[in-house]
């Protein structure tokens, strides 16, 4: 192991964790997908989860989002057991082309979140305008998803998530299908947005560099069944910068450590 000494810590800093997995195991049919997961996430923390496919990282995210109930153990949010989707927890899906309503415009898709949380129709127009402005789509409000690029569609999804005014943002490989330039732009965008709102983020990715660049901690998982293998602290200064951060020795050391670790896992 190199000298970054990844800490075996799975407990978040601070007294009460915002999100906690306690002894969580999960089985799909007869196939175990998660085994004895213990992990806590503190308020305003940005935690990235990496691992090969089959390591159950998406399942973990769905559990926090209330879309899946663990077979064994419990997931808590703010000290209470998660039993279903919550207003404060927003979920951003990987496949933007299937997560947006194709028959609604960008504005209409954002409006869906406002309609769901009972925002009176008079207030919606201004809120939608504000949200689309925040993600740089002010001029595309009337476009249907099919008329927008992948990056723009994902921005619409970000705006829809923000419309919920969440304290937790769950992101399931949100930039995986985008080209490199768009991905970097959106990474910075999301950092800027959550920096302002102090939102807690759980971020699933298979891009190790993305995980280091965005995260305060990176949780690496083993597959079949999914287990937490190692937790890496990311001690990189903020705000992060696509050039200087990625060139810094600390970034490179971490990247090396994670790559080595993943390679060991595959061997």
């Amino acid at each position: 192991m190199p000298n970054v000494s990844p800490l075996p810590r799975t407990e978040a800093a601070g007294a009460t964790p915002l999100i906690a997995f306690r002894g969580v195991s999960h089985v799909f049919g007869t196939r175990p997908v998660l085994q004895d997961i213990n992990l806590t996430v503190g308020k305003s923390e940005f935690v990235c989860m990496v691992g090969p496919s089959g390591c159950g990282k998406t399942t973990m995210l769905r559990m926090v989002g209330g879309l899946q109930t663990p077979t064994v153990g419990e997931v808590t949010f703010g000290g209470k057991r998660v039993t279903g989707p919550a207003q404060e927890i927003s979920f951003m899906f990987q496949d933007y082309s299937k997560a947006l309503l194709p028959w609604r415009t960008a504005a209409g898709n954002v409006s869906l979140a406002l309609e769901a949380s009972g925002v009176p129709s008079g207030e919606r127009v201004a809120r939608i305008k504000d949200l689309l402005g925040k993600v740089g789509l002010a001029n595309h409000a009337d476009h249907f998803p099919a008329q927008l690029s992948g990056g723009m569609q994902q921005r619409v999804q970000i705006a829809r998530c923000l419309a919920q005014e969440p304290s937790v943002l769950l992101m399931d490989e949100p930039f995986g299908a985008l080209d490199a330039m768009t991905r970097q732009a959106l990474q910075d965008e999301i950092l800027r947005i959550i920096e302002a709102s102090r939102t807690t983020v759980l971020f699933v990715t298979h891009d190790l560099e993305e995980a280091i660049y965005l995260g305060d901690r990176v949780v690496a998982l083993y597959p079949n069944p999914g287990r937490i293998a190692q937790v890496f602290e990311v001690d990189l200064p903020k705000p992060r910068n696509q050039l200087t951060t990625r060139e810094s020795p600390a970034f490179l050391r971490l990247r090396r450590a994670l790559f080595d670790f993943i390679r060991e896992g595959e061997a």
Partner: protein
Amino acid sequence: MKLLKALVLPVALLIVWEIAMRVSGVQSDSLAAPSQIAVAFYAAMLDGTIPRRTAETLRAALTGLAIGGGSALVASIVLGLVPPVARLMQFSIEVLRPVPAVALIPVAILSLGFGYGMEISLVAFATFWPVLIYGHAAIANIEPQLLDVSRVLRLSTFGRVTKVVLPATLPRYFVAFRLATAVSLIVAVTVEIAANPLGIGYELMTASQSLHPDLMFALVLWIGLVGWGLNGALLLAQRRLFGPAAMAEIAR
């Protein structure tokens, strides 16, 4: 130009038919020349027979369609969104569905007598199944992630149905209703021919039994035109009313 090409064959056939009838000079109780059919059609239109009979048939067919298709729409949503209900109902559906609506004519006459009531009931029975089966399949085919989105956003059940499920399945429901419309006309006319003293079917039967082949053929052609017109109107409505939603299905 396209229309012109399409008309070449039927017009040619009509001319051959007309010439053949005139040259051979047959006096037939079962055949009529196109010119005689046209005259009979014109006369039946003028004296109000065709408009009145058409109104009767359409009234029965469309009311039945509204009842059968409408209840199937609701039932398919329940089946699609509550899997236990679907499992519970599956056997009953598979047993009832193959019963031809025509086989129920005697049952309907016995319990409801002649008139609109029994014809509408039979049309409703016949149109219920295609809409139920197509609708159920359409809901099963909704992108699961869209349903996840509706859960994460915590839409109410009503909101989920009206804002996600129905718009996502609308194009398919429209296909189901076009199918059911054709069925409704077939069943209505069949019931009229077989038993009910109403509508185009009854008039057709009367024309046949009173040896008026000219009126009979005029009515057969007219039924075809009515069915074609109904389908055309629905297609037009699909394009006009559900622009973006219908487009979504095409884009996918």
